[in-house]
């Protein structure tokens, strides 16, 4: 080995030593958990108002109209359920005080809906054996909620489903000519 070769070998060895000694990095890691509690939940909105239209021939049918409901719901996987009801909120009020017209209390506001009125949105959808508007025309009650959509089952995950609710008010010759306004409240529950 020549002197030049020895010098290179020595330099190589020293460089290796220095590089290795100075190479490490210290690190410390600490952990934390993120815990999410997802609860059963429901949300609903409705078209703000609907004006009922009279029958083609006066006094031969009902004033009718449709409210579009948009709702989302999720229920617990075990034993969960949900339901949608409607209740009169304010009674029919005439534009002119004293005029006589339909009343909710008198059973003049009825509604109906069917499976064909439901449009699925996102998610796995509604579970359970669904009943739409009680399976027949229902009468709105001022004191208690009546069924719109019942039988929503466990592990429902439905986002932005829509449901049409069809209104009817009889066209009676006994009513004074006027505009009558009432409000109803839809309630969607989830467990």
């Amino acid at each position: 080995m020549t002197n030049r070769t020895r010098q290179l070998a020595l330099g190589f060895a020293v460089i290796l030593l220095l590089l290795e000694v100075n190479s490490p990095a210290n690190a410390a890691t600490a952990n934390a958990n993120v815990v999410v509690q997802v609860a059963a939940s429901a949300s609903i909105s409705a078209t703000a108002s609907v004006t009922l239209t009279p029958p083609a021939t006066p006094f031969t049918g009902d004033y009718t109209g449709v409210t579009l409901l948009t709702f989302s719901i999720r229920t617990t996987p075990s034993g969960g359920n949900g339901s949608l009801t409607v209740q009169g909120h304010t009674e029919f009020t005439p534009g002119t005080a004293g005029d006589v017209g339909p009343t909710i209390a008198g059973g003049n506001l009825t509604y109906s809906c069917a499976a064909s009125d439901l449009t699925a949105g996102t998610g796995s959808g509604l579970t359970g054996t669904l009943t739409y508007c009680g399976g027949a025309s229902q009468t709105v009650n001022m004191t208690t909620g009546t069924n719109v959509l019942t039988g929503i089952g466990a592990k429902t995950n439905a986002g932005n489903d829509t449901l049409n609710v069809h209104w009817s008010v009889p066209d009676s010759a006994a009513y004074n000519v006027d505009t009558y306004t009432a409000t109803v409240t839809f309630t969607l529950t989830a467990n």
Partner: protein
Amino acid sequence: MKFKRGWLAISFAIMVASRLIGGQGPVKSRRILATGSSSPVPLLATVSLNVSPSAVHFAASNPVGGPVAGDSPLTTSFTLTNTTNKNTWTLTIQALGANLAGTGGGTIPVGAISYTATGSMTAGGGQASLNINNASGVLSTTAVQTASGFEGNKTFQGQVVYTLAFTDNWNYIPDTYTQTVALTLTAP
């Protein structure tokens, strides 16, 4: 030939010795130039890291309400000793799994949890610094560098606070979901 073997043996022995000392990371030649041949090799920075609380909880009661804030921010406090003025430290955040796991087997992607990071240096000297690199984002299994800075020439103390939020969705099945987040501080 005998002399050559001797040098090879010495080289190998030096390499093994250096490994035993602890070398395993990336090469940093800067320190060699700074210490000089007559000074001892500087010590590694000593890293101390604490995260509080041990768990952040989110009450996801309704997706309509927008992101749900955690019940507490996640505060990372750390101390560096044996610092070297211009050496750079880094802090990363990383989820240890792709999903939050529900007790019933359901999952939620960890990306449903977002963070906003803020930080401050509470002690340090020389060129010590603390910079927020990715002030906001969502959790992922990739370690994301959220803060870094220079160690400075004195004991360094800093704090990075993560404000977490959960974005709820109607598709999530009611349950309790958990995942672990790792905060890692590295200093040369």
